[in-house]
């Protein structure tokens, strides 16, 4: 559990770096590092498929997409952020951590036990037999995404203005 807490802390640190970094490229890389830590946490929880997806797709593909966007929007990319954002952040963060700690301890007192029998079968059984409808949804979402990107990047005709 100690190692897991270290990984969780690293995940939070990388996410904070992604949000607070001034350079957008650095934030994209920090987000990829955060995904890497999350993937390792998933592995250690006994969820190798989720870990593989998290590391390959989120840390790989999404980072590439982010970098592509940052490269394409380079000239106007410097948006001046309000200076108070970083100054006020530690204050809000400390207050939130206090609230978070007490709320989660309250949850600990309220939840008697998370019931549930151990699952039978393998990950493939659960994904293909119990959640097969999800797969149709996933296909539909991917198709919708492809069409959305195609629609957003289509060439303008000469006829319509």
């Amino acid at each position, binding site marked *: 559990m100690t190692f897991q807490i270290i990984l969780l802390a690293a995940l939070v640190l990388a*996410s904070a770096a992604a949000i607070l970094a001034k350079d957008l490229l650095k*934030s*994209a890389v920090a987000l990829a590092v955060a995904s890497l830590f999350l993937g390792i946490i998933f592995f250690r929880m006994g969820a190798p498929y989720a870990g593989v997806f998290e590391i390959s*797709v989120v840390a790989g593909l999404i980072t590439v997409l982010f970098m592509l966007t940052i490269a394409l929007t380079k000239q106007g990319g410097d948006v001046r952020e*309000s200076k108070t954002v970083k100054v006020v952040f530690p204050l809000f963060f400390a207050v939130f951590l206090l609230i*978070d700690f007490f709320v989660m301890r309250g949850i600990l007192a309220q939840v008697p036990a*998370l019931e549930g029998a151990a699952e039978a079968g393998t*990950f493939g*059984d659960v994904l293909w037999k119990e959640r097969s409808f999800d797969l149709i949804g996933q296909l539909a979402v991917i198709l919708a995404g492809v069409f959305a*990107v195609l629609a957003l990047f289509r060439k303008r005709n000469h006829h319509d203005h």
Partner: protein
Amino acid sequence: MIINEWVVYLLFAAVLFFLGLYCLLTMRNLIKLFIGIEVIGKGVSLVLLSTGWARQSIFLAQSLVVTYIVIEVSLVATALAVIINLYRVNQTLDIRSLTRLKG
């Protein structure tokens, strides 16, 4: 014992959620805002998987997380395409330049 560890996961996931929400409320760069949404998504998938782990139904949680990741990729592709198009129209990534949509 396992509930104690589950609460630790929830605590860290709430911190991730806070970070993303803070980013969404305070930042002005469109890409930064989207990174905030990504961080919130990480927190949500951590909650999903840790709850499944604590309930000993890790396979179900895992399939939900995989579904979420696939949807996330589609979402990111579409949103970044929208951001690039907004940049082409406005020549800036500042969220405050989008006030032309006001009624």
